[in-house]
């Protein structure tokens, strides 16, 4: 059942649930930060509309810097602003930033510990029709290994707004990962947001824990609901903060269930699954199944067509749960 303590959206399983894009939440959060802190500035690489920096740029033109199609310069300009008392947000598609400008961010933002927030948009297969060139599917893996940086993947637009505001209130670098399409809203304004892992779906005597991040968490919740009808009990946990990772909760839930699934719109290697596996290998080796891209690039299609093809949808999660249960009882 949905965890009543988290004040989640009770209508999320309606035939047509309320939907919005996480990038929309980012845009709102950025404006809210601009309203409350005159030191917040934003930069974008010729994608203000699709990264939702547009509202901030219109409302605060003096604090918005268009960088043109030049992601390396955008990142290092932001680093210079960040060491000069500003809170600098940079926005582009994640394949370009932190993709194309990876080393620039490594040196001038992460190592330099400059007050820069990197908003990586159009992440994952959800980018859909644009195809694999524009579907960032390695970004979590490539940035979470940097010291000094936090990595946050909001699950819906409401959480995205909260995560953006929270990122603007700390002085160290943060990577925020957003998606393009509208997806079901799972949380409400009253759902707490504190960087800890939250059990969105709870049950007595769970057999498996599913750790999910980003919009695909909804597929995990759909799976949990269907599995309940088959008398298979699972926990679905939302991991918004991949770094720092709520390690205690990872171990606690792995111990309680004895089998772990990770779900992310990203390569199965190196992202959320990798982070969880690192914690468990050190503390409590546990059978795991990884839902994500299996060392392959995406392609053109709708998000739902793509997650079906690449075995990242509700049905694939259900199969993974059953496989994990077999593995732990074998």
């Amino acid at each position: 059942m949905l965890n009543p303590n988290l004040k989640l959206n009770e209508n999320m399983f309606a035939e047509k649930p309320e939907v919005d894009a996480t990038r929309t939440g980012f845009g709102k959060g950025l404006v809210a930060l601009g309203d409350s802190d005159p030191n917040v500035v934003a930069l974008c690489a010729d994608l203000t509309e699709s990264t939702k920096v547009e509202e901030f740029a219109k409302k605060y033109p003096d604090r918005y810097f268009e960088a043109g199609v030049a992601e390396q310069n955008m990142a290092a300009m932001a680093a210079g602003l960040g060491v000069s008392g500003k809170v600098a947000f940079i926005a582009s598609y994640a394949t370009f930033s932190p993709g194309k400008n990876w080393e620039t961010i490594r040196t001038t933002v992460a190592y330099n510990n400059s007050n820069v927030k990197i908003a990586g948009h159009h992440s994952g297969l959800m980018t859909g029709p644009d195809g694999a060139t524009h579907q960032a599917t390695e970004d979590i893996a490539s940035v979470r290994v940097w010291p000094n940086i936090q990595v946050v993947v909001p699950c819906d637009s409401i959480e995205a707004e909260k995560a953006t505001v929270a990122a603007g209130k700390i002085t160290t670098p943060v990577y925020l990962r957003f998606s393009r399409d509208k997806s079901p809203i799972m949380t409400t304004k009253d759902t707490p947001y504190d960087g800890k892992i939250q059990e969105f779906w709870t049950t007595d005597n769970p057999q498996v824990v599913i750790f999910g991040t980003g919009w695909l968490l909804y597929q995990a919740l759909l799976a949990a609901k269907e599995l309940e009808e088959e008398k298979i009990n699972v926990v679905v946990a939302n991991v918004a903060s991949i770094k720092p990772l709520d390690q205690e909760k990872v171990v606690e839930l792995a111990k309680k269930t004895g089998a772990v699934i990770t779900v992310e719109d990203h390569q199965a290697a190196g992202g959320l699954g990798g982070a969880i596996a690192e914690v468990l290998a050190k503390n409590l080796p546990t059978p795991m199944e990884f839902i994500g891209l299996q060392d392959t690039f995406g392609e053109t299609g709708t998000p739902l067509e793509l997650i079906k093809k690449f075995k990242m949808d509700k049905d694939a999660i259900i199969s993974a749960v059953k496989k994990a249960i077999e593995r732990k009882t074998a």
Partner: protein
Amino acid sequence: MLEDINDEKLKDLELKAVEARELVIEALLEAGSGHSAGPLGMADIFIAMYFHVLNHDPKNPTWADRDRLVLSNGHICPIQYVALAMSGYFPVEELKTLRKFGSRLQGHPHRGALPGIETTSGPLGEGISQSIGMALAGKLDKKNYHVYCLTSDGEHQEGNTWEAIMAAAKYKLDNLIVVIDRNNIQIDGYTENVMPLDYLTAKYESFNWFVQEVDGHNIRAFNTAVNQAKAVHQKPSVIIAHTIPGKGVDFMENLPEWHGKPPGKEEADKALNELRTLQGKIEKGV
């Protein structure tokens, strides 16, 4: 505006530049690795910056109104470390810890490691961009400080450098002054063979910058150029400083092979002898 440099002041700065070169040689010998040619070639400009041009306070390195100096080609940091030490940011004796375990003098400059380092640099092509960020912050905060970005010619082969050159002109950053160490060498050889850069003047002018060329070993001319640059409105400025890599040490001058290596003991002794002779000549005014 900067004060003119009278004869007495010029002599003092020139002597300091020779002393700086000696300290560079000693630090590199002690370190056993590092770059020789660039630091020696930029000694005159670094001394001019820290002892005349910059509005700074070594005892208060985070003073909000200070001028910022960003070293984009971080590999020539030995000369920046020497200039920082000589001007009082930290003890001169500490220069001998360059590149050693536990030292504040990291192999490339790192913000927070050492007072006076404004930002982390080393990977080429990132300094002008970061300087733009600092210059934009200065404008937003209505501060009067200038941002000086010292770069190399070789790093103008980086695409990021040209992204920055476009952006600085777009934002009309008249509080940004870029100084290029035009010494014509890089690790693999002469710049014009590795990847031709000429003519930087025409390139910068076409990107809408105010461009000047100076002899990078003529401190008085450099000072005049900085004054000209500060007088420009609505445009960023670049000073292309023609320098001799390895300047002051005869057997290192103009040779790409000295770009990326330190002197050995005998070479260091020879270099120091030569520099001390030069010092004597300047003192006697010959």
